[in-house]
């Protein structure tokens, strides 16, 4: 029996090479996309956490200020060190400095070699032989090999490290032999970093290794109550969770897209297998008559599905691997998401996920074969042997009218469910209900295909059309299955494409408008996290400076929740009265009581921490908890994990040091060129970055486009699969009617007329598919824009349907559909009429 099954599979593959290959390719594409995303992301995450481990080591717990401007007092470090449950505490000071006024700032880590040996061994410095008589405790810094290469430095070289107005003239005393290739690091003795750059009397953080047998949770609990308000003690495990959380939503989003690609692949298998079953209905009927049991007739089709799925999925794994290599080389490990920076991470395929994706591919292909297999199993043998494929199972008892009514009711229910799902909040911080709603919309679209085809073609059948066209229309009215299958393939793929284009376009428009508001000044200067030099700030205050207005700002980060990435605290020179005009608020701006501190939170912040204007917010600021009034919510597309704006005057009043890192500059009218020249001196001396708002805007949008590169690739893939499906089903439909076409030929229709009829049919089917697909696409796009985006990424925007892209896309797809049907028609009409009539069986 296995032999017979194998003969049939082989026969199927050799006679329908194109359709089989396309189905395989579609499955391969789905698997490849999913697998590539998985590989890249796994590699990037591993890379990122390894990078973090090499810098942070592998402590059990970390004590750090909740405010990036804060510090851990030495007394507390020493107190924790004396705890018998603590094996060792490694204090570090981390800061960013420029080397000799280079534009790029690098990380300088001050460490204590004694404790670093146990906690962060990868950061241990090595004294260079070329630097005579030195030691790690002396004036000198140690550089990672990559940094030495990047800055063309060698041990012994004198360097000046600059942070704001502080300069440290020192020398390269050696290197960091265990640093990773991506690490751009300087290491020096902690005391030297403290003496040069601060913080006085404290360190940036302490990394704790617990004594063996001590439970992290218990120990954290014991210390939690004893810490000052501005400090947080966290389990180091939280850090990896946080790293993973950084890109989680983006990743899930991409994986859902891959799943859609896989589903489209399953659909193509469905189309292929359905047509295969239809084309071979007499063969299967014969085998049934000869004694092939119904169960084996079912299995045969499933087996053929699997025979497509197995090589398809295998090919997909290979393709996915290749794609992941290519992607990491071209776009980087963050899939364009901008979450992790650094060079391309190493792709390391492991067996379990590979098997998982392989199984997924096979499952998709089996799923696609399920309905055709069932249809094959229930074919009435005697009838199929005589007249060929029966499209629907022998009808049951229910009257057609009642059935139609039931169908309508079911579809209304699905629509209601989809609407309901869009109202649900995020689950596990993921827009799962939104994804489910999208699935329902697609189901609805596919479900709408049969009634719409019937209605449209029914109406066409009543028109006075030329004979060939009428025959084509009549054919679909009588036997709509193939048309419906072809249409639903297009519905799914076009809906997906339209929705993606809509979402991306809405997002891009929103970002564009937002950039207008957040970039009001013509010029910007920034120092990338290092305080701006006092000389520049002083010069700007002089009347000779060619600017009519200068706004300074600084940023620190606050840790509100150890499980989440830190929130940005933006210190800006703005008055509480004028805030409304300066920030892109999404709603009302509330006037705070005069005696209360007011802050304005970003939209992601509002959603992540479930806040609302008018409420009060406790911020871990400057070593204590500060209660602030939330004056309003402003739109922010730049910081996914939340941001808070505070007035610089308020910040200083609280005791904070306002060290501006960014400047917005309005040159005096007519003095733009002079302003540039004036600034150039400072930017050159201090390695600052100057940009005009136009450049920033261009750069922002190009980063945006890059981040959607994968999305575009998926769209293209989906559309191709949909068109493949259309071609395959149309060809099969035409083939099934070869005898009919031959008869018409014999009756005097010429080939061109027949081809036109088939093309007309193809155009009608494609048109219906595209129209329903467009409707579904807009609906899905709205769900993506209004439900998935806010829930996954916490940004909201207006829906913008890019008709200029959608309509030409639809026209192109229609043309492709017509072309596919023309190809199908020519294939069918090329056979000699007599042979078809004689050998139709």
């Amino acid at each position, binding site marked *: 029996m296995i032999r017979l099954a194998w003969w049939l599979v082989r026969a199927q593959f050799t006679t329908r090479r194109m359709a089989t290959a396309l189905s395989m390719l579609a499955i391969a594409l789905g698997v490849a996309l999913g697998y590539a995303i998985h590989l890249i992301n796994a590699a990037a995450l591993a890379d990122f956490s390894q990078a973090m481990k090499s810098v942070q080591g592998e402590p059990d717990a970390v004590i750090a200020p909740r405010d990036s401007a804060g510090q851990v007092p030495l007394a507390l470090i020493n107190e924790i060190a004396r705890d018998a449950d603590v094996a060792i505490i490694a204090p570090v000071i981390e800061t960013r400095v420029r080397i000799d006024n280079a534009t790029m700032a690098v990380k300088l880590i001050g460490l204590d070699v004694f404790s670093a040996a146990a906690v962060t061994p990868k950061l241990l410095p090595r004294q260079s032989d070329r630097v005579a008589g030195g030691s790690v405790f002396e004036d000198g810094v140690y550089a990672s090999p990559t940094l030495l290469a990047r800055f063309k430095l060698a041990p012994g070289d004198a360097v000046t490290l600059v942070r704001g107005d502080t300069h440290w003239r020192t020398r390269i005393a050696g290197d960091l032999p265990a640093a990773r290739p991506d690490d751009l690091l300087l290491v020096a003795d902690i005391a030297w970093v403290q003496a040069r750059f601060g913080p006085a009397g404290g360190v940036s953080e302490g990394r704790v290794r617990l004594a063996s047998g001590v439970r992290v949770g218990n120990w954290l609990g014991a210390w939690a109550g004893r810490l000052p308000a501005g400090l947080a003690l966290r389990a180091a495990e939280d850090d990896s969770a946080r790293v993973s959380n950084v890109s989680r939503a983006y990743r899930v989003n991409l994986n859902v897209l891959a799943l859609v690609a896989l589903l489209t692949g399953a659909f193509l298998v469905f189309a292929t297998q359905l047509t295969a079953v239809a084309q071979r209905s007499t063969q299967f009927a*014969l*085998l049934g008559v000869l*004694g092939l049991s119904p169960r084996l007739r079912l299995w045969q089709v499933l087996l053929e599905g699997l025979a497509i799925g197995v090589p398809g999925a295998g090919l997909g794994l290979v393709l996915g691997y290749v794609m992941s290599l290519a992607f990491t080389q071209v776009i980087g490990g963050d899939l364009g998401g901008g979450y992790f920076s650094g060079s391309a991470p190493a792709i390391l395929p492991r067996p379990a996920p590979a098997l998982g994706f392989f199984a997924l591919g096979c499952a998709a292909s089996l799923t696609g074969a399920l309905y055709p297999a069932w249809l094959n199993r229930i074919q009435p043998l005697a009838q199929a042997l005589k007249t060929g494929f029966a499209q629907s199972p022998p009808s049951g008892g229910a009257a057609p009218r009642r059935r139609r009514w039931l169908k309508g009711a079911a579809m209304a229910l699905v629509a209601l469910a989809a609407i309901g799902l869009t109202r649900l909040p995020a689950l596990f911080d993921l827009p799962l209900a939104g994804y489910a709603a999208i699935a329902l919309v697609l189901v609805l679209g596919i479900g709408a295909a049969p009634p719409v085809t019937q209605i449209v073609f029914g109406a066409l059948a009543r028109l006075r059309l030329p004979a060939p066209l009428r025959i084509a229309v009549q054919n679909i009215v009588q036997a709509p299955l193939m048309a419906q299958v072809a249409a639903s393939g297009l519905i799914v793929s076009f809906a997906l494409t339209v929705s993606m284009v809509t979402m991306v376009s809405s997002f891009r428009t929103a970002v564009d408008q937002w950039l207008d508001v957040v970039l009001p000044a013509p010029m910007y200067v920034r120092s990338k996290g290092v305080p701006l030099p006092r000389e520049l700030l002083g010069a700007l205050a002089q009347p000779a400076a060619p600017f009519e207005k200068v706004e300074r700002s600084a940023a620190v980060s606050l840790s509100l929740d150890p499980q989440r990435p830190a929130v940005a605290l933006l210190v800006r020179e703005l008055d509480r009265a004028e805030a409304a005009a300066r920030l892109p608020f999404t709603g009302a701006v509330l006037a705070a009581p005069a005696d209360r501190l007011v802050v304005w939170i970003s939209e992601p912040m509002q959603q992540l921490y479930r806040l609302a204007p008018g409420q009060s917010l406790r911020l871990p600021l400057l070593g204590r908890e500060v209660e602030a009034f939330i004056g309003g919510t402003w739109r922010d597309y730049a910081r996914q994990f939340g941001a808070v704006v505070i007035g610089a005057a308020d910040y200083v009043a609280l005791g904070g040091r306002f060290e501006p890192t960014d400047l917005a500059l309005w040159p005096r009218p007519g003095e733009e060129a002079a302003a540039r020249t004036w600034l150039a001196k400072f930017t050159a001396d201090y390695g600052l970055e100057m940009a005009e708002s136009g450049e920033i805007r261009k750069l922002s949008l190009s980063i945006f486009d890059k981040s959607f590169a994968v999305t575009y690739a998926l769209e293209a893939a989906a559309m191709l699969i949909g068109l493949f499906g259309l071609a395959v089903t149309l060809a099969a439909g035409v083939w099934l009617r070869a005898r009919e076409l031959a008869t018409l030929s014999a009756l005097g229709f010429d080939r061109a007329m027949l081809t036109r009829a088939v093309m007309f049919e193809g155009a009608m089917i494609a048109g219906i598919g595209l129209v329903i697909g467009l409707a579904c696409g807009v609906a899905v796009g709205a769900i993506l824009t209004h439900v998935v985006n806010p829930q996954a990424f916490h940004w909201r925007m207006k829906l913008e349907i890019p008709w200029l892209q959608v309509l030409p896309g639809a026209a192109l797809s229609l043309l492709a559909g017509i072309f596919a049907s023309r190809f199908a028609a020519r294939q069918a009409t090329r056979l000699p009429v007599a042979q078809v009539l004689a050998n139709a069986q």
Partner: protein
Amino acid sequence: MLTITSLSKRHANAVQAVFSGLSFSVQAGEVVALVGESGVGKSTLLNCIAGLEPADEGSILVGRQAQDIVRLGEAARAALRASSIGFVFQAFHVLPTLSVAQNIAVPLLLAGVAAGEHAARIEALLARVGLAGFGPRWPASLSGGELQRVAIARALVHRPALILADEPTGNLDPRTADEILALLLERVREQHAAALIVTHSQHVAQCCDRVLTLTPEGLQ
């Protein structure tokens, strides 16, 4: 080999029965022709005997074990067809995607005959139907007569107890039809099988051992 008792059949939603109370039997080695006007239910009767259409009443005992195909489930009916019935059709129904030998091997595979025997049996039978050496050829290259010879070989290869033939010569020119009919009868008798041949042809009917005529009133 085939015993039909009080067989009745009515199409779904039809008022009039196709036939009712049919009883007859065909012995091993006996070739019986079934004739009658178009639409009288010859094909339906044949489908009922093959278990492809359900009968409403009566019994149809098929094969050496005399199993009642009316009372069997779908899978068991398929198994009974595979083991005990051979089919010859007017439209030949040779699978275009399998070679001649593979086509003939299908019943052997379905009946579970040991794979080692296949080649010899197929070769021998091909010789008996006048197609020695045709095994590796593809059906597309065969003439109608040759195709029907393949079909006859396929119908006989698993040595069924009953051969059902539906207009086996209907698509052939008279000379070839004679040859094929002679071959069919010869081979059926040689294997001592029972055969029921549905035909419109007087000539075919005359060549059979017995002729049953189906009319709206019943068998005559």
